[in-house]
């Protein structure tokens, strides 16, 4: 994928843990330049980020391991700068420069 920043791109850091990294080239930390405008002209929010990750970053074919019914699947917490995204507006949160977004899959082992 191309991560060349254009003037209008939003540089962010996306991290995957709890096994989700296996869906993303086994790489935990991704530095991305997200287009600042989504497909439909909307500002780049977390809903757009999730679609962008599915289409441009995820190599694994099993999309349902990450997204179900158009949003992250049950069992995954999304943390925006170390806070639950539901505290920040959920999938409508507009990404800002240098935001840190972590996708944490819950673990069941003990």
């Amino acid at each position, binding site marked *: 994928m191309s991560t060349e920043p254009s003037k209008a791109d939003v540089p962010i850091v996306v991290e995957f843990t709890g096994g989700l990294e296996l869906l993303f080239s086994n790489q935990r930390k991704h530095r991305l330049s997200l287009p600042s405008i989504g497909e439909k002209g909307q500002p780049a929010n977390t809903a757009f980020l999730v679609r962008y990750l599915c289409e441009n970053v995820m190599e694994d074919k099993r999309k349902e391991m990450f997204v179900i019914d158009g949003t992250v699947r049950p069992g995954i917490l999304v943390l925006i700068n170390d806070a639950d995204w539901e505290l920040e507006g959920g999938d409508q949160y507009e990404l800002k420069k240098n935001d840190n977004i*972590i996708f944490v899959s819950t673990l069941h082992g003990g």
Partner: protein
Amino acid sequence: QGESTRPLSQSEYQKYGRQMIMPEIGLDGQLKLKKAKVLIVGLGGLGCPAAAYLAGAGVGALGLVDDDTVSHSNLHRQILYVEGGVGLSKVGRAIHMLRHMNSSVRYVGYDYRLTPEKAVDLFRDYDLILDCTDHPTSRYFISDAAVLTGKPLIHASALRTEGLLMVLNNPPSRHGNNDEGHCYRCVYPKPSPPASVVTCGEGGVLGPVVGVMGTLMAMEAIKILVPTTQQADAQVTSPDDHQPWLITYSAYSIPSFRAHRLKGKRKDCVACSGAATITRESLEFGSLDYVAFCGGRVTYDVL
């Protein structure tokens, strides 16, 4: 009167001296620990160190639930077991070891698989529950039973190189106010799809990873059993600090530990909100089918 002037035996003073000289514990805190009854569900990689440090700290009673037997593949991380115990009951072997470590604690073994039907009655006898199990099904009904019985719950999990820790239902309540503890369903209203669930047996786990998480569970248990308001007040200086947290550990990342702020109680939580629909009856008479809810994987194993 002899009782009230010597609330601890001389051997207890010796055993617990190193923690009693701390302002966070003191004699008063040690007596709180001695009165406390803690239930550990699952005697695997989490439950073993949690039990060892809670026994060492001198809790009054330690309940231990597991239906499994010790196997060779447990030994690298389940530090209460020895090679000679392979094939024997985990509950029996754990109590055998713990009693040697601290004979002043009362150990109660439950050598069966915990089910929703049994959970409520069992939790009633304890002050605090540690969920050291290994499957979504048990995670949900343990949380539900902790809410129904009003017991704080320490929840941790580990897999491969990573671990999670949360304190749930603390303080316990079902009125839906914001200062009440949230439950597991507030964090995960819907279970993970079965295909995404990996156990330690399938995915592997490093011993120190699960060991760190189990040891941290013991620490959180001591913090709940011995509230240090003075200490806490001195440290809590921003409203954020009252927010519930999720601690994650990732052994190969830098920083390895992170604390994430959670949303807390959901107003519509089916278990712990004012609008809760889950009842003791729905747990005990099977109208809540946890196995089906979690996608039909019938077995669960305790790591």
